[in-house]
């Protein structure tokens, strides 16, 4: 419940609009009930054959309700949807602002891509909380109470007989659904997940399955899961059907009960007979507003699950924080690791163990080693995505932890292993690195990254859309784009993490030599497992399980016939072009 309230609290800036939406919702229902109820009164009154003038008010009301109902409904839908989309917008903005300081360190216990996609869906899921939970509840409460009071005005007995029916329809039917279906319903997401995992296995693993003749077992597993989910779904379907059957019964039943109670009141003259039709029709029409409540509980549960997932992440504390007192940005551009040790988790073995090295202006340093040796972690620490456990990362001699996060990140331009591009134009994707870059800057960066021809190939040049919803780039093109982007950023240190892994050997060598030539006055840190352009490096560090096991120039390391030499031998074993 608190989760739902907390979600709804995001609507506070939109109080007035929420009130307007609810007022319109009530007015729509009133017009709907009013139309048929007054029509009932109208024909009853007409049956008494009064002068036409006596009927002018009911005739006018019937016409009025008939015309306004549609417009009220249209207005209500517009305002309530604008409230909903305002809520979603507020949630997105807020959620991003909470996530920004957390990424990526505090998110590392969640698996990334998948979880993020799910969070986007979780926010979308909150669409229901106002439209299908909050608003129908309030509108139903207000209008049903109003009708009950109106019945009471005619005669207290009418109200007393209607109230149990209204309560049963508005509260009993939803509760019945929850009692019969909630438990089994909980299994459904689990079974669906299994079914989806099985589909993934059977489609992505099809080659292996067919070669090993396991089609039958796949069919069997899918059929079994289908049976399981079928039995749960059948139960849910039957419960929902029962709910609508009972809902229908209560509506007509209430009208019948009200008429039955009213008959003696009419015959004894306590209620005018002319109102009998009015009362019957009004009661019947009221129940339409209660029927949407049947699904309130499951929707509320979904809101709670989604909300909890979002709040759990948003409420966690970032593990890298600004120092209370920061010093101004360093003048010198050296990056220095001094006896750095680090573990992602206290229970796990350290990823880096007593690592010391430095990169100075104009110096090109490579870090090589097998995957899992801790190479990428060096970058995460330099960017202060994490803070070191022991030792110190220094910029121009100053401890990185005493600089502001912005100052640290202004020092380094990076190409990360997983290239993130944005669904935007090519121009804007590059300008992330330097918002004021000129056209010439952009073209220079693309050329240096051997991507100059891309602009000519694209339909709208620099203004072509790329990314998920735009043009799909190949892995190699994405990497070169990331390199161009990093070149644009005017940071003194350039760091590349497996930045050329998807390029063919010839392009790889060209890109690297152009890049190093363009960065003669920068400090370059090249992290790689492929030994390319190593001759151009001032120092090569060989990392193995978090420790620097060898260091020196290419020639020195080849001569010493150690770990570096073995890496090179393994690479030479590969056939040249494939």
């Amino acid at each position, binding site marked *: 419940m608190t989760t739902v309230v907390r979600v709804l609290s995001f609507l506070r800036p939109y109080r007035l609009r929420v009130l307007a939406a609810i007022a319109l919702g009530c007015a729509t229902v009133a017009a709907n009930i009013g139309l048929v109820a007054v029509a009932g009164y109208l024909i009853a009154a007409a*049956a008494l054959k009064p002068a036409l003038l006596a009927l002018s008010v009911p005739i006018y009301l019937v016409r009025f309700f008939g015309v306004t109902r549609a417009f009220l409904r249209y207005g209500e839908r517009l305002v309530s949807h604008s409230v909903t989309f305002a809520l979603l917008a507020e949630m997105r903005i807020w959620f991003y602002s909470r996530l920004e300081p957390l990424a990526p360190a505090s998110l590392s216990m969640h698996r990334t891509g998948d979880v993020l996609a799910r969070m986007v869906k979780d926010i979308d899921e909150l669409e229901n909380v106002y439209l299908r939970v909050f608003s129908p509840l309030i509108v139903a409460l207000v209008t049903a109470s109003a009708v009950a009071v109106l019945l009471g005005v005619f005669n207290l007995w009418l109200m007393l007989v209607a109230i149990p029916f209204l309560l049963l329809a508005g509260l009993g039917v939803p509760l019945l659904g929850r009692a019969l279906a909630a438990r089994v319903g909980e299994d459904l997401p689990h079974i669906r997940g299994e079914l989806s995992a099985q589909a993934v296995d059977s489609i992505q693993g099809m080659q292996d399955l067919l070669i*090993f003749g396991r089609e039958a077992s796949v069919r069997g597993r899918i059929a079994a899961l289908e049976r399981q989910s079928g039995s749960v779904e059948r139960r849910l379907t039957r419960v929902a059907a029962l709910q609508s059957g009972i809902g229908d019964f209560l509506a007509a039943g209430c009208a019948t009960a009200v008429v039955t109670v009213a008959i003696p009141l009419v015959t004894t003259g306590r209620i005018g007979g002319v109102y009998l039709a009015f009362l019957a*029709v009004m009661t019947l029409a009221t129940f339409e507003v209660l029927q949407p409540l049947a699904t309130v509980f499951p929707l509320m549960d979904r809101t709670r699950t989604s909300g909890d997932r979002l709040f759990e992440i948003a409420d966690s504390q970032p593990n890298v924080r600004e120092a209370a007192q920061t010093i101004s940005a360093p003048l010198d551009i050296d990056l220095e690791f001094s006896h750095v040790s680090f573990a992602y988790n206290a229970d796990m073995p350290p990823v880096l163990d007593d690592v010391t090295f430095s990169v100075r202006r104009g110096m090109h340093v490579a870090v090589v080693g097998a995957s899992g040796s801790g190479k990428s972690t060096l970058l995460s620490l330099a960017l202060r995505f994490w803070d070191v456990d022991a030792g110190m990362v220094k910029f121009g001699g100053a401890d990185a932890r005493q600089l502001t996060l912005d100052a640290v990140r202004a020092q380094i331009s990076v190409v990360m292993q997983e290239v993130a591009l944005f669904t935007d134009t090519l121009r804007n994707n590059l300008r992330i690195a330097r918002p004021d870059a000129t056209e010439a800057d952009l073209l220079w960066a693309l050329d240096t990254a051997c991507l100059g021809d891309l602009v000519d190939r694209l339909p709208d040049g620099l203004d072509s859309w790329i990314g998920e919803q735009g043009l799909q780039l190949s892995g190699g093109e994405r990497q070169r784009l990331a390199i161009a982007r990093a070149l644009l950023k005017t940071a003194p240190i350039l760091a590349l993490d497996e930045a050329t892994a998807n390029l063919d050997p010839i392009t790889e060598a060209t890109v690297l030599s152009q890049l190093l030539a363009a960065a003669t006055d920068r400090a370059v840190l090249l992290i790689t497992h492929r030994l390319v352009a190593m001759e151009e490096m001032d120092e090569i560090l060989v990392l193995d399980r978090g420790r620097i096991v060898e260091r020196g120039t290419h020639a020195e390391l080849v001569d010493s016939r150690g770990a570096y030499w073995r890496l090179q031998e393994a690479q030479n074993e590969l056939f040249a072009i494939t």
Partner: protein
Amino acid sequence: MEMTRNVARQLGLGSRIVAPAVVFGVLNTAALVAEMWLLSRVVADVFVGHDHVATVVPLLSLLALTLVLRAALVTARDASAGLAAIRARGRLRRRVIDHLLALGPAYARGERTGELVAATTEGIDRLDPYVSRYLPQTILGLAIPLIIAVAVLTQDWVSATLLLVTAPIIPLLMILVGSYAEGHIQQQWEALARLSAHFLDALQGLPTLKAFGRGKAEQATISRISHDFRDRTMRVLRFAFLSGLVLEFITAGAIALIAVTLGVRLLSGSISFERAFFVLLLTPEYYRPLRELGQHRHAAMEGAVSGNRLAEILATPVASPQPDNGVPAPAGPIRLELDAVSYTYPGRSRPALADVSLALPVGTRTALVGRSGSGKSTLLNVLMGFLTATGGEILVNGVPLSTIAPEEWRSRISFVPQRPHLFHGSIAENIALGGPEARLDEIEWAAELAGAMDFIQSLPERTTTLIGDGGARLSGGEAQRLAIARAFLKDAPLVLFDEPTSNLDPRSETLIRGALERLTQGRTLLVVAHRLNTIYTADNIVVLEEGRLVEQGRHADLLGSGGAYSRLHGPGRLVPA
């Protein structure tokens, strides 16, 4: 866009499957007419006839009876529609999976897999509202108004005429307004899709944004885009809700019109109160199905999108139809002969394989080399029977491959892919793919031979450790050793091996080489080779270029001839003596 009748029937979603729901719906409407008639009688008897409670008790009891009957009918209607949808979805899912398996991995490969998974899971689930709500409504939307109109006609032909005249206006105006709105909606759609993608992008790209010092600046963009998104959505909805407005306006207007006409005619005495009240009670019910049909249109459109995609999948012809009475695959060692084998992908003009003639004698090792796109994978797929050669013939110990049932043939092959798929399950289950009835000691024996035992020992629960989606992560070299273990367990006479293109850690490298050595003892091997050692030691090296076999022979001979192989091999290589 809607699903055509043809597509629906092909998917097993024809109207017939909701026939029971329609019957219950029709019966419910009949009962509703009776209910309204009884209610109008009771009210009229008391109001006009001044009857007492006692005299209307029979009518009231009948009314109560109808209510119970209707509750049962509504329950039955909704339940049978829902159950029909569940059955139809289950049937469809099994059919699609069967068809995908028949189409084989050549169809379901690469980036398409994600889309296919979505189509068979969420795509099929999205058909639920289509079947359970929209489909019955397409018939009931016609049947219910018709029943009510007939009922009204028996009492008052004037009102019946009004009902029948107003009804066709609704769909007509809806189509008119709909097509007007459609244009506006389409315009906004592309922009909306981009905006929603931006948010996901920003979340996924957060580390990049922060590294460029743009994390905070992006917040302003997110805020601007979120508000823009909201405004655009509202602009779309303003039009999307228009047809609802028209619908509501006509129905409410028609109810008001009928009520006022009834009132005026009551004054003139041309109709009785009882009949007028009965007509008034039925009028909203007449329009209700039309309103509901409008509400379910969304379900119809979503269903159409998934339905059309599924129909497309099912309509894809299976490349290698199973021979009806295939001959059994030859037992014992395997000798393969390819005689001018060609393959052209459907819709392409250039063949992916052209006139490839090749012999794989029993117990030999053949290395297949060539640039990516030269036809190596196509050749593997043809050999495994996932693609049927469009020209030439493959002979297995002299028997044409096309006469052997594919499943039978595959039982004679082991295949070790570059990136084997790890199924969700234990290590043992993953290895046992190569022999479902294998005992644990046999599995461990296979893992030992494959050089996989050392990393399995280091896992927390050894052979019962869960891997695959959500399980422990294995490196490329470890995954391939599991695939080799599968091959040992299967013990097939023909081994196809796709060597990894990338660097493996030195330990995996050594272990895989040793395992492969053991696996190919006494078996016929074809390897797509990327490693010099594999190539140097092969009995025969086959060079593919643009689908053609351009050279074959031993390393020394090929290098000496100065042809395609020596060009591929590159100048600066050290050549072992």
